[in-house]
């Protein structure tokens, strides 16, 4: 009974292979283009026993418009969409055939008191039912597949986009929006592709029924074919206001979700200090606004439902009326009229499918518009001129043996090759900005999307797109041409970005710790030995992390390193950065949350570990400064003094002020802030 036809297996296989971007062999049918050039230099993109995803050819979505994007999604999985259509057709068939078979059973069997004929036609009916039910069981699976393949595709595209753009994406799209695309817009796009398949089935079954009606009575058939499209067209105008109402509802509810997430994120503070009522009330207020918008949308849909009932009902009456005329005129039998009845009833179904598809399309377009807002973002980096390749080779990019110096033209900062240089600044924002420049990161911008949720959606969307385009243009301008930082005498703008990332590793002030085992945290690319990993744990003095974590290397670190103290997290992050063994390592405040004793130990061990390689660090802690080969004092974006710590301490009053303040021994008051 439950012999799963090949289609089911095709689906399960698809889902199984879906894990690694091989969602569907048909995915790459039109000339795949790599989405992101993995910055990895290792030829093997192997992550795990199976081929890594980065290896699989990537696809480029059509982001020229929401409609196009939906079409693109459907086209990517046309096989499963067609399959859905096909099985839904087979499933509908008995619905379409039943009136005919019923009519024959009544005409030839029951009315004629012919039990044999009754049984024959009933038997045929039974057969179609068995067929239909089997098709239904496949349909369920095909629909789910159609839905989730699209859903997963969107999620995968988002994660790949983030991987491709890195820090650039966060300058253009708020994190919350990316997450809502991945979690909810992907779902409504899945719904569209799923509905598309059923729409095909409904459409074909409509044609079939119309054909059957035509075959028995041209008059009735024509009436059917003319009235139905009119009904469909009649309902279409109502869809516009629904779309508008839905946009408002969506905006409001995504804001509501944002508030919920915000409450959870700040829950420790809310439960620690207070404010539960204020923020609970804020949430409730917004929740009521969502409710109002939702009622509006619901009322609109009620009117569509009513229209659908009305239209299909009237169709039923008109057909019966005409059929009765034909019967009275002797051009139709009773059985045939009963069949017509059945056809008319059956046609309600394709109608409903149409309206459902229209609804899904409507919300799908909204989701698609948001999605392409992210997927349409391009990296600002342009490939360097070919001539620079020669320069690069001259600069010895391939030989790791000779360490390179790093020089920032704007500030006059120089990190000599193979040395530990520390940047000291009274304004830590300044030294962080310099570190960003050294690593070729675009400076942090302040996107302030002060959104007015009920503003005209289209205009707002356009405005949002314009803001993003402006940022993108600014990014591109900043990223093109010379960067103003030279690595071994070559401007970073002359080097491909992946080479820059490989040779210069910048560990910023707040890196993220990803959930997983300790081993995987330190060595995400699985290309280090246990001894190497142990060594960096030693250097970062992370024995306490080891002891507090049951399971050793396989001990589990929660998302974002929750459960570790700030100091523990910071040391793991440092260890992870050290393990990448770059030519140039830039560390921003690497031990700001670590206790003095431990900091002193790290400051002692790290220079030894990085011996002979270029290392840049920003801090004001004397524990570090005394180990520096050179210290550079940054004031108002310029390096104003350089030298050994002791020497600067003795000669430079400004330096002394900064470092002593950093120690927290504020001359006045002597408060114990840090």
């Amino acid at each position, binding site marked *: 009974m439950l012999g799963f036809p090949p289609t089911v297996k095709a689906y399960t296989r698809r889902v199984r292979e879906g894990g690694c971007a091989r969602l569907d062999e048909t995915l790459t049918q039109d000339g795949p283009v790599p989405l992101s050039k993995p910055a990895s230099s290792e030829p093997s993109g192997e992550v795990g026993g199976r081929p890594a995803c980065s290896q699989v050819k990537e696809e480029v979505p059509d982001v020229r418009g929401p409609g196009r994007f939906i079409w693109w999604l459907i086209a990517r999985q046309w096989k499963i969409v067609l399959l859905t259509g096909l099985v839904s057709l087979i499933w509908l068939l008995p619905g379409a055939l039943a009136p005919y078979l019923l009519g024959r059973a009544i005409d030839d069997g029951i009315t004629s008191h012919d039990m044999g004929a009754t049984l024959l036609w009933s038997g045929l009916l039974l057969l179609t039912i068995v067929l239909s039910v089997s098709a239904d069981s496949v349909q369920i699976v095909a629909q789910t597949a159609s839905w989730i393949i699209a859903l997963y595709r969107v999620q995968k595209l988002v994660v790949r986009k983030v991987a491709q753009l890195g820090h650039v994406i966060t300058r253009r799209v708020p994190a919350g929006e990316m997450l809502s695309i991945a979690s909810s817009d992907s779902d409504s796009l899945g719904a569209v592709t799923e509905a598309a398949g059923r729409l095909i089935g409904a459409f074909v079954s409509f044609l079939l029924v119309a054909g059957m009606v035509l075959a028995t009575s041209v008059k009735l058939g024509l009436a059917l074919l003319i009235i139905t499209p009119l009904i469909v067209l009649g309902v279409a105008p109502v869809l516009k206001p629904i779309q508008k109402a839905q946009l408002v509802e969506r905006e409001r509810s995504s804001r509501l979700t944002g508030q919920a997430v915000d409450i959870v994120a700040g829950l420790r503070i809310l439960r*620690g200090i207070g*404010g539960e009522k204020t923020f609970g009330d804020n949430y409730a207020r917004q929740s009521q606004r969502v409710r109002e918008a939702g009622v509006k949308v619901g009322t609109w849909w009620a009117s569509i439902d009513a229209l659908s009932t009305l239209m299909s009902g009237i169709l039923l009456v008109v057909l019966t009326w005409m059929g009765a005329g034909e019967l009275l005129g002797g051009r139709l039998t009773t059985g045939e009229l009963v069949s017509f009845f059945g056809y008319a009833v059956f046609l309600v179904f394709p109608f409903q499918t149409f309206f459902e598809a229209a609804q899904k399309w409507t919300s799908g377009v909204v989701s698609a518009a948001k999605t392409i807002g992210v997927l349409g973002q391009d990296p600002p980096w342009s490939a360097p001129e070919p001539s620079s390749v020669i320069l690069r080779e001259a600069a010895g990019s391939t030989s790791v043996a000779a360490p390179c110096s790093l020089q920032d033209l704007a500030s006059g900062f120089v990190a000599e090759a193979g040395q530990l240089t520390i940047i000291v600044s009274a304004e830590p924002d300044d030294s962080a900005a310099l570190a960003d420049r050294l690593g070729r990161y675009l400076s942090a911008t302040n996107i302030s999307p002060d959104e007015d949720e009920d503003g005209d959606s289209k205009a707002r969307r356009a405005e949002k797109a314009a803001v993003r385009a402006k940022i993108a243009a600014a990014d591109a301008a900043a990223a093109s041409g010379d960067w103003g930082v030279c690595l071994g005498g070559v401007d970073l703008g002359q080097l491909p970005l992946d080479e820059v990332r490989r040779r210069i590793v910048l560990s910023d002030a707040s890196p993220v710790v990803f959930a997983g085992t300790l081993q995987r945290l330190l060595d995400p690319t699985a290309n280090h030995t246990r001894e190497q990993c142990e060594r960096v744990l030693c250097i970062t003095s992370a024995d306490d992390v080891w002891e507090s974590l049951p399971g*050793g290397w396989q001990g589990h670190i929660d998302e974002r390193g929750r459960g570790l103290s700030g100091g523990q997290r910071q040391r793991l992050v440092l260890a992870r950065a050290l393990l990448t063994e770059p030519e140039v390592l830039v560390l921003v405040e690497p031990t*700001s949350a670590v206790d003095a004793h431990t900091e002193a130990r790290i400051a002692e061990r790290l220079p030894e570990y990085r011996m002979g390689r270029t290392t840049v660090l920003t801090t004001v802690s004397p524990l570090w400064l005394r180990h520096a080969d050179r210290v550079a004092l940054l004031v108002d974006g310029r390096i104003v003094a350089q030298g050994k710590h002791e020497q600067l301490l003795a000669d430079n009053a400004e330096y002394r002020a900064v470092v002593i303040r950093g120690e927290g021994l504020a001359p006045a008051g002597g408060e114990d802030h840090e």
Partner: protein
Amino acid sequence: MSELFEGSAASWSEEPPVSQVPDELYEKIEGGPLKRIRIFLKQHHLRWEIAQQKYWAQRSPKLGIPVTDNGTVVRFIAKLIRTRKGVVTAMILANVVAAVAGLIAPSMLGGLVDYVSSTTHPDAMAHVSRTCLIVIGVIVAQAAFNMLARALSAVFGQDMVAESREHVIRSVLKLPVSTVEAASTGDLVTRVTRDVATMSGGVRWALPRFVIAAVTVGATAVAMVLNSWLLALPLVFTAGLLAVATRRYLRFGTIGFVAESISYGQINSSLTETVEGARTVEALNLQANRVFATDDDIEVAGQRETFTAMLRSELFVEVGFAYRLPLVFALIIGGWGYGQGLVTIGQITAATLYLQQLVSPIELMIMTLNWVQRGIASASRLLGIAAVPPDRETSGEEPADEHLVATDLYFAYREGHDVLHGVSLDLTPGERLAVVGPSGGGKSTLGRLLAGINAPRSGTVRVGGANVMGLPLDKLRTEVALVTQEHHVFVGTIRDNIVLAREATATDEQTWEALATVEAADWVRKLPKGLDTMIGSGHHQLTPAQAQQIALARLVLADPHTLVLDEATSLIDPTTARHVEGAMSALLTGRTVVAIAHRLHTAHDAHRIAVVIDGRIVEYGSHDDLLATGGEYARLWDAWTN
């Protein structure tokens, strides 16, 4: 094999990271039909096992926030319905009228068929036309009531969803402080986003449709019995099969859907990490890793979807037969009954029409059942938030003064592993105590106990003679506050962000005063909307220094007499130190301060110093005393000052 850490060699894995999905599920289904079925069944069974594992793991409170049982959910929904009797009655009435109107039309048309097939009246067509006009009237009424029913469903559904989600957020806001400290935000975020959405879908979309469908099915069944009890007999078969099939489906389905929901939570949290860590991903060249992580999570979700899809597939086979086979039965019974003179052709026509009409509502019922099912699974996760038992009971004791005393504190996160071994402290009001010592020694834990966040396993912390665990939270907050490294800026106005501890009583003057104390009044005044300026994600963005001033202003307004500063280094993070140190000292002035310190100079400035090592206070005294003793502290100080 040398190892620098104990157990290092044993726990190190040379195996490359693998998928979370077991290999068996990657096995291709191929070979002969029997073998294919065998492989499929094996995989299906494995998926079921995994689903159960995840389901029960989710239910065990060890993982944080529990999941309630279905009974609680049903009671909750029943309560929501009870409080909305008016709308519910109107909604059901409108539905019934619409359903009945929907039944009248076919029966009238069926009568018409009977009439035309037997009449010889010359003016029969006029009668037909008249009847058709009446039927159109009925259909118009049906459409109108349909609209009313749907609109009322929207009103009711939206209202119910709004109330439930507000209930959820309120219960989140009531979570015990110790739970909040321990629970994973990922889980909570999934609950307040995805589960709320699923529940909304279930309640708003599915529940009304389910009601409509159920009403229609019931009315149709009644109409069939009225039409001819003989021809209604096949319905018994329908009811029986449906009952068996749905019962089984619900049993497996609940577990399957909870497991599925967990897998989406997982996708969500790893995606969140990737998005928020976009820069880290770029810096460390982790693109392939993160893509793999998400793809693998998706793989897991796909497996769970496969399992539930199979359940649905099986269900639809049974349901399909349940409502389609009766048509065949009706024909055979009809054929026999007509011969016996028990039924007329019109009755048979009507019966077959009714049976065909049953198709969509039954289908809808099953389809929505599925959604209701998901909705209930989500609701049980949501209501689980409220099921966390409170961690404190108000004792009614009132603090007599501001004197904080800790006596013989023991504490363990895991049973049998005490991190504090009998710590006692007596804080003189106004004094400044620094707690120093190596990481992992129990400093932060001590801070949490002093602030009344966690209850000690044994021993007490008393303020003015009253046990801190017995004080109501809003009272406690104005006595002792724990200041951690977090300085979250909430989405809300500046006022909302500051009045937290005294939200019910704080005036604008007090708020401005607090802002002035932390030297933030100037820039706030310059904002066009002043205190009403919206800040937080998606609104006016603050500089890190401003964010810290806001965090400090909260504490100034809360005005606790004792502050426990835990790693306040990060609150005053070095990137903004210069801007906020004045604010910080303003906050500390005149309060008792316990500073859990990373830097020894903090200790140097404090009145007294407690050196905590391995859960014990090993040294206690002023800086000079401790130096004179020449113990651990003196050793550290030497290392520091070199």
